[in-house]
């Protein structure tokens, strides 16, 4: 039996979905190593304590709440020092983080201070005696590595969307704590967090990804893809390299480049034939739908469901049908 630590990511006074995923991942790890406790740490401005119930329901036995007026923005040095202090005191078998912009910043710092290694972008894990064995994508998803972590605690950062945050009836015990260092003493200061326009979902985290390719013929036709994403309500828009190279979409929308692997519940490829690079970037999606005029396009070999035909006719019809289906819920 071993206790597991989870870091619950927040932004301002809101929890992020990846934070609940990390909590549920820690729950699964605790259960797999004989049913220990999950201790989840959340750090934020006054008011974040109101989220403790939600963290408990996602698998935490103890929710450690650190509130401070100076923590409205992410403070890497406070988060690192506070997480390190808790992990050292708790003697955990493993510490679970998220592979997000914040988690990629925080988790290696914590591991280095603990004197242990770390694996980010973890796809799945198992407990094997003394080792925790994880799967991790290499070479932009073209190779999958199985890695054994021997250090204690094993520090891992989960890839977004690979764990479904599970709810149970339990509410965790709440403990309040102070930041391990005074936020005003931090050397690195996040002066401002600028929210992007319209709360755009991130490709790596969105449950649904709609991606467009050359088959859309022109930049303005991406509106079809955006309309379909809006109909889903929980979708992000992605693109192929051909499209971003042509400047139809920003490079940050490209799927298949370094660090741009997607693994949503549902991936819809619109007018994408399926270059090797692109297929590597999306093949671990749970369900893949392809719409393309060429029935021999490589994308159809990967797609669970395909429709052959004109995207300009099919996508508006699909958008309408998704809108109807969502209404009935």
């Amino acid at each position, binding site marked *: 039996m071993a206790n597991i630590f989870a870091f619950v990511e927040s*932004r301002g006074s809101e929890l992020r979905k990846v934070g609940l995923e990390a909590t549920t991942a820690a729950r699964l790890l605790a259960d797999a190593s004989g049913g220990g406790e999950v201790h989840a740490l959340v750090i934020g401005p006054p008011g974040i304590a109101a989220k403790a119930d939600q963290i408990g329901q996602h698998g935490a036995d103890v929710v450690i709440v650190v509130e401070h007026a100076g923590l409205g*923005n992410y403070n*890497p040095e406070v988060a*690192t020092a506070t997480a390190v202090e808790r992990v050292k005191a708790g003697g955990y078998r493993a510490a679970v983080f998220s592979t*997000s*912009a*914040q988690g*990629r*910043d925080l988790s*290696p*710092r914590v*591991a*280095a201070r603990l004197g242990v*290694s*770390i694996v*980010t*972008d973890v796809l799945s894990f198992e407990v094997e005696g003394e080792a925790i064995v994880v799967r*991790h*994508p*290499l*070479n*932009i998803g*073209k*190779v999958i590595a*199985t*890695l*054994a*972590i*021997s250090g204690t605690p094993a520090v891992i950062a989960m890839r977004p969307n690979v764990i479904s945050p599970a709810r149970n009836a339990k509410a965790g015990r709440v403990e309040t704590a102070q930041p391990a260092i005074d936020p005003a003493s931090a*050397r*690195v200061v*996040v*002066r401002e967090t*600028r*929210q992007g326009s319209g709360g755009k979902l991130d490709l*790596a*985290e969105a449950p649904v990804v709609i991606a467009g390719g050359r088959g859309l013929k022109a930049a303005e036709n991406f509106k079809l893809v955006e309309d379909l994403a809006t109909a889903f309500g929980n979708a992000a828009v992605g693109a192929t390299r051909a499209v971003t190279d042509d400047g139809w979409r920003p490079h*940050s929308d490209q799927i298949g480049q*370094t*660090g741009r692997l997607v693994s949503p519940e*549902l991936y819809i490829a619109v007018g994408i034939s399926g270059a090797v*690079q692109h297929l*590597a970037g999306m*093949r*671990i999606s*749970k*369900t893949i739908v392809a719409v393309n005029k060429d029935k021999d396009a490589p994308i*159809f*070999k*990967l797609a*669970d*469901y*395909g*429709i*052959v*035909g004109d995207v300009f*006719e099919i996508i508006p*019809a699909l958008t309408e*049908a998704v809108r109807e*289906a969502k209404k009935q819920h």
Partner: protein
Amino acid sequence: MKIAVCIKRVPDMDVRFKIGPDNTSLDEVGLKFDLNDFDAWAVEAALQLKEKNPGSEVTAISLGPDSVQETIRKALSMGVDRGIHLKADKVPFDGYSIARALSEELKAGAYDLILFGKISPDSSNGVVGPMTAELLGLPCVTAISSLSIEGGKGTAKRELEGAQEIVDFPLPAVLTVDEGLNTARYPSLKGIMAAKKKPLDVKAAALPAPQISVRKLELPAERKAGRIVGEGAAAVPELIKLLQTEAKVL
């Protein structure tokens, strides 16, 4: 300013990879190697700072077998002043091990700024920069997409999911570079000639025993053969039904 850039030699990703006979390493036959893109942007950032601050010196450091000297030479040909090769039989997956070896070398260098690419496409772990910063006890900002440095202080922008952070930090500091910071220059012919005469020190890498071992590498599982639902907009209702009842994603 004294600037160090830590760089990595990585394979070109635009190929179908093969797993070696030991099942724990890649078959490197036929792979082309080059400087990691993110590291090239870090080198470019260092060179731009050097151009703004006359008298600056830029050092490129790479850990690995002798082949990494080719990558260091590329950085030298872009305009880096000197190179350090931390010699190791191979580059371990364990980023902590690498960070320990790099910090051993960096701690004596009195650098004002230490730059890394934010991630390399091969190991796709992205941890060596921030780990090295912690081992050196230095302030660190990761994944920056803009940077200004003046009077011993810096400001950087980080891209988050659907948001940006504006971050202030003092020097000396460790930064990791994201896409969008700059466009890396190509080595000029003059630069390539000059690089041959620039100093490149070779030292043994002080790599501690790794805490992560590679059990196996494999190619991603083939997906089950899918099916064509139909042709044209007439197939949409059937697709919706499958997404609701079979895939259960709608």
